Structures are given as C-alpha cells and as structure tokens.
C-alpha cells in the first residue's frame, strides 16, 4: 500500500508540474497541489519516524554486541563459538594480566673468538656486552605481564630468559594511571628515560646489538631500581622533562651498601612534526652514579675503580614517511652522543691512587623501508677512550702495563642490516658488521636473527 500511494504521488506530481505555469489560478489545481504538499509532509514525517526506529534498533544491536564482547572478555577461556555468556558469569581469569612473549635468537659467525671481546681503552663494562657466542644462540626471550591494578595504578613485569637458562628481571614496575596534569610516576625497576634507545626493549631495535656507546657506558641499557617522574608540558610542541632516583646498583655504578639515593638522572626531550610527512625528537640527559671497588680483570691483572661517574647524553631522531603513512616506504635517522667522566681511585692489586678519565662515544644510523615489509639499515659506531690520569702511573709507581685495559684506543664499528617483517609480529634479519673494538683485531660478524612476538603486544614508542 505504501508503494502504491508513493506511485500515485509521483504520478500526480508529474502531471501537476507541467501544468502549474499555465494554470496558476485554477482552484482545482491549487487544491491538488496543496494535497500533494500535505502528503509530502506526512511522508517526510513517516520516513523520519521510520529512520528513528531504525536508528534505535541499530543502537540496540550495538549495545547487545558490547554486552556480548564484555562477557566474552570476562570468560576468555570459554570457546568463542558457544553462546555469549551472561555478563555476570565472569571467569576466574578475567582479571589476569595480559601476557606478551617475544622469542629471539641468532645464528652468528664471528671471525674472532668472542671470549676475547673488549673495548680497547675502556674498563670492561658489566652487563650485555659483546657479540655473544658463535653458531646458534637462543637470544633473549622476553615474557611480559601487564595489567591495570586499580583506578590509580598499572603494573608490568618483564622477564628476560637467556639462552644460558637464566631468568632475570628486565623490568618490574608500577606506574600511575591518572595523576593528570601531564605527570607520570613509575617505581620499581625500569628502562631509564635517558637518551633515545635506552627506553626501548631490545626486540624493537633496528640492529641485532646495542650501539657500542651503550655497551661501554651502560653495559647495554641503563635500568635503575628506583623511581621516575616525568612531566609533559602543556604546549602544542612536545616538551617532556623527567628525573629518576635510583639505587646506583646498575653499571657504571655498583652496590655500595649505602642508604639513600645513589644514582640520579635527569632528562629533557623536545619534538614536533615537520608537515605531515616528518617528525623529530631531540633530547639531553645526565646520569650520575658511583662505584665502590668495581673490579675487572684484563690479561690476568686485577684492577678496581672507586669513585663517581657522570654521563652526558645528547640524542636525536628523525622519521619520515610519505604523508605520514609508513606502510610503503619510510625512513628513520637516529644518532646519540655520550660523554662519561669518571673520577676517584684506581687500584692495581694492593696499590691505589687517583684516577680521572673522560671518554666519549657516538653512533649514527639510518634505516630505510624501501618496499612493504623490507628494510635496510646502516650504522656507524665510534668510541674515544681519551688519555686518563692514573695516579699510580703518574707518580711512577707502576707502568701503563699494569692497566692494560686503559691504553688509549678508539674502537669503531660499521654495521649493515637487511630485515624482512611479513607482519608486525615477526621479523627476520641479516646483519653484517666489522667490529674494531679490540685493538688491532677486526672482527667480521655475520648474524641471522629472528624476533617473534606472541600474544597481546603493546604499541611501540616513537
């Protein structure tokens, strides 16, 4: 009936239109026109009412889907094919933390014995240093559990499981959720916010290994046990400042059996976009920590350092993608400079005297995605040991041969890599590096690496 009336309206309208000009004063036509107008309005109203009913019905469907989704999340273990459980029937696992797992491994070919790896001119750092072992290696597998704790706090724990069957706590912290005002506070063990690469988990790195400067000055990454506060300024340009207090146990510090705050770091980062296609971030950071009897041994001669370490870092990163869409091609340029001052005493055997040294290092790397899923990268690393003041040598008590690690040398390394990521959850990488960290013994390193990510996976930071 609806269709029928519509049709008659249309016919009436078709007849009415051509006539209207010639017979404007015909009362019968005027009446028809008024009738049409009336019908039009009534249909308009009915259409609107129908549309409203449709909208209400759709909203109800959306609501039902929301309820079903909530119920499904609650009873995650229940098979999805089963009828959606009522929202009240929540499983015991509903509040379990989300789990994410990263599997990593390498196949390495090293031309030099990795057991002899050291940075010429530097005291050997403690931590994840060097190229690892030859042949197949289980890299670090990371197991992360994270969840909101309550409205105020969220927490996260990341285990690093090494190929040597050791589990270590990579990160374990809680953070505030809704302090507001641009403030975020974190406490526990966490990757420090200093520099650029320091805050990123190793599975997100663009090369197999950390830059030499990170290895020499931090023993990999700086991960204090302590508390961190960050504040984001309320500007349209990104400006973030942060400070951390720590136990001082992580390298270059060590456990000094001391109360209070034994390590301090501060950092500031600024950043912005350049048009739609590019963005940048740059920062300055400062870390101060101390060591007591930080012992090391090179060529069978035991040495130990006690004193203060302070590190300045400057970092910058620039990213480009056409129209800001990185799917097809994108480019990333990053570089960091680090300068460490250490002063205190240096012991050789029973003897000890003053020590002061300033050492620096930097790296610059570029990674280009030249087609979907494929990226190529180049990196250059350099360290400069400088010439330290060694009291025992200066006073003529001992010769430089008592401190074989500290003979001036400038280690360097060039790396090139190619990686393929069929999806954002998997990556295979080939890397070649010529590593001249040891004086006079260039090491040609070839790595094949896999990085696989399972489970819920948090997004990556800029």
């Amino acid at each position, binding site marked *: 009936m609806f269709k029928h009336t519509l049709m008659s309206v249309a016919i009436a309208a078709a007849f009415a239109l051509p006539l209207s000009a010639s017979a404007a004063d015909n009362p019968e036509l005027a009446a028809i026109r008024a009738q049409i107008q009336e019908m039009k309005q009534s249909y308009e109203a009915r259409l609107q009412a129908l549309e409203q009913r449709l909208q209400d019905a759709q909203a109800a469907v959306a609501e039902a889907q929301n309820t079903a989704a909530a119920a499904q999340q609650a009873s995650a273990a229940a098979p999805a094919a089963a009828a959606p459980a009522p929202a009240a029937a929540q499983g015991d696992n509903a509040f379990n933390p989300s789990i994410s797992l990263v599997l990593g491994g390498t196949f390495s070919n090293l031309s030099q014995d990795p057991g002899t790896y050291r940075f010429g001119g530097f005291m050997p750092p403690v931590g994840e240093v060097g190229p690892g072992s030859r042949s197949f290696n289980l890299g670090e597998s990371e197991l992360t559990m994270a969840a909101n704790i309550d409205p105020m706090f969220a927490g996260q724990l990341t285990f690093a499981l090494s190929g040597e069957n050791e589990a270590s706590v990579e990160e374990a912290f809680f953070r505030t959720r809704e302090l507001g005002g641009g403030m975020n506070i974190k406490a526990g063990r966490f990757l420090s916010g200093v520099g650029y690469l320091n805050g990123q988990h190793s599975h997100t790195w663009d090369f197999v290994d950390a830059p030499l400067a990170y290895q020499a000055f931090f023993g990999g990454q700086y991960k204090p046990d302590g508390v961190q506060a960050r504040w*984001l300024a309320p500007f349209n340009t990104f400006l973030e400042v942060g400070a951390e207090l720590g136990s001082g146990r992580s390298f270059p510090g060590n456990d000094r059996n001391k109360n209070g705050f034994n390590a301090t770091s501060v950092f500031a980062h600024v950043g912005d976009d350049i048009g739609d296609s590019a963005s940048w971030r740059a920062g300055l950071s400062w870390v101060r920590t101390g060591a007591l009897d930080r012992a090391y041994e090179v060529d069978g001669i035991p040495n130990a350092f006690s004193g203060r370490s302070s590190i300045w870092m400057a970092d910058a990163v620039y990213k480009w993608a056409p129209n800001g869409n990185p799917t097809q091609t994108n480019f990333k340029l990053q570089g960091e400079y680090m300068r460490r001052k250490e002063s205190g005493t240096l012991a050789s055997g029973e003897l000890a005297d003053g020590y002061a040294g300033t050492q620096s290092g930097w790296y610059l790397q570029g990674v280009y995605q030249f087609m979907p899923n494929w990226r190529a990268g180049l990196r250059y690393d350099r360290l400069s040991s400088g010439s330290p003041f060694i009291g025992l040598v200066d006073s003529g008590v001992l010769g430089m041969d008592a401190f074989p690690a500290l003979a001036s040398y400038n280690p360097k390394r060039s790396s090139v890599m190619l990686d393929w990521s069929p999806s954002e959850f998997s990556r295979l990488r080939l890397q070649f590096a010529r590593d001249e960290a040891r004086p006079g013994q260039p090491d040609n390193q070839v790595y094949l690496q896999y990085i696989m990510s399972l489970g819920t996976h948090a997004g*990556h930071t800029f």
Partner: protein
Amino acid sequence: MTSLTKKLIAGGALALAFALPAQAAINVLTCEPEWAALTTELAGDKANVSSATNALQDPHRVEARPGLIARTRNADLVVCTGLDLEVGWLPLLVQQSGNAKIARGQPGYFEAGSFVPRLDVPTKLDRAEGDVHAAGNPHIHLNPHNIALVSAQLAKRLAAIDPANAAYYGARQADFAGRWSQAMRKWETQAAPLRGMAIVEHHRNMEYLMSWLGMHQVGTLEPKPGVEPSAAQLGQLLAQLQQQPAKLVLRAAYQDERASNWLSQRAHIPAVVVPFTVGADAESRDLFSMFDTTVQRLTAAVK
C-alpha cells in the same frame, strides 16, 4: 606611553592569555578525519578540533609521534573509532600524555565503534588469520547510518563535557541529523544501480559501505587482513575472478595503487579509488561531499 604602562598592558595581556583557555573552546582530538569532520558539524566554533591522522594515512599504522603526544596532553575529549583500530598507538598517546581526562572509561574518551552494530565479529581469534580485530570490523564510518548513530551520541558527550553549551550542541545535532537523513536518501537513490554488485577490495575496510549499498565482496587484494598483497595471491585472485567475476576493484585513497591497477588491467575491470575519509582529495572537504564523491565514483565506474 611610559614603560610602566607598557609593562602593565603587557602583563594584563599575558594574564588574559592564561585566563582565556578556561572559558574558550574545548579541545577535541580525533583519531581519524571523519570524526573531526563530525565534531566540527556538531560543535562549530565551540571546539578546537584536530585529527591525529590524515586521510592518506593508514589508521592501523600510525606512529605515536611527539607532536601527537603534545596534542593529546591538551585534549578535553578524544574521539576515536575504537574496536582496536588504534590499538597500536592510542594507548601509548594516552599513557604518555599524562592526561587523566581522556583515559579509557572517562567521559573524555569517546569510542564511536561501540555505538553502532558491528560486522565481521570473529568467531575465532588467531593471528594466523592476519590482523583480526576481536571486536569486529572497525571501519564503521562508511555506512552513513552509523554516522547518524554516532552523531547523536557524540552530541550528548559534548554536552556532558561542556554543559554550558549543551543546548547549542543539541540544536546543531538536530540540524545535522535533518540534513544528513535527506542526504542519505539522495545517496541511496543515486546508488540504487549498485545493489547486488560484486567487487574486489584491497583490505576489508569497505564492509560497511557494501552492506549499506547492497554490494558484496568476492575477494581481497590482501591475502589476509593487514598482509601486503603478493604476486602469488593476486594471480590466484585473477583466476578466481574468471569463475566469479567482479564489477570493479575498490581501494581507499591511502592504499597503494599498484596491486589494484595490476588486477584492473588483467581482469578488465575499473579500479576505483574512494576517498575513504574526509580530506583525501579536493572534492571531499566534509562528510557530505565525501559521500557525494564516493557514490559518484562508484556509479560512474559501472555506467
């Protein structure tokens, strides 16, 4: 003018500059351009609206850039599609911004996807199926009926965030809804010839458009959601089209043209680009013209 008066004036201006934001327009950050356009329709000059992404970006793959973090910090309301579309970057923005107003569950967090009926809700969650969205297909905005549903909810939310202008938002929503339903009837009439048409799409991001206009999909250029098209997959698709022909191959402006052109040439069907969202081309300045362009491109291709 003495230097003292100058200083006083400067001081006054400065004080004003700090005082103003309290009563000025609310800051709205949207994840996608379509929600920025909708918010502007509803809020007019009562809101400073900006979109985190532009029409040429893939909303799945966006970097949590420093500039975005800064904009999130100052937002009173974040309007996003949700349904895990922005899962790779929005949580980072919210967390790093330290802005408590826009955390998930707060009034400042508006998830458009939760107010419309979803398509493609998976019965099985497995990453072997590619980039699956647990809550359903998130590209909801290409059915204008969904825009209508969201607009009613968004107006309510704007009123809740900014009660002083509640009546204003209500009035603008009523006006928008009237113009929108008229426009929908126009598009539906224009697009009537598309009913029953089979198409190939690049990614499963046109499902809502198809369900609105009665079209259906007989293949995607991507072998699995989020996986780039490969030569092998395209070859298979071409063979499959011999049995099950499609009228056109459809992609969004942000998607790479190569795969769709390849198929277009070999299967002898037109490759059609739709703006997908506001701002993709000069013709698609707002929501109305975006749908005008979409319907016009589709109908022109099958004439």
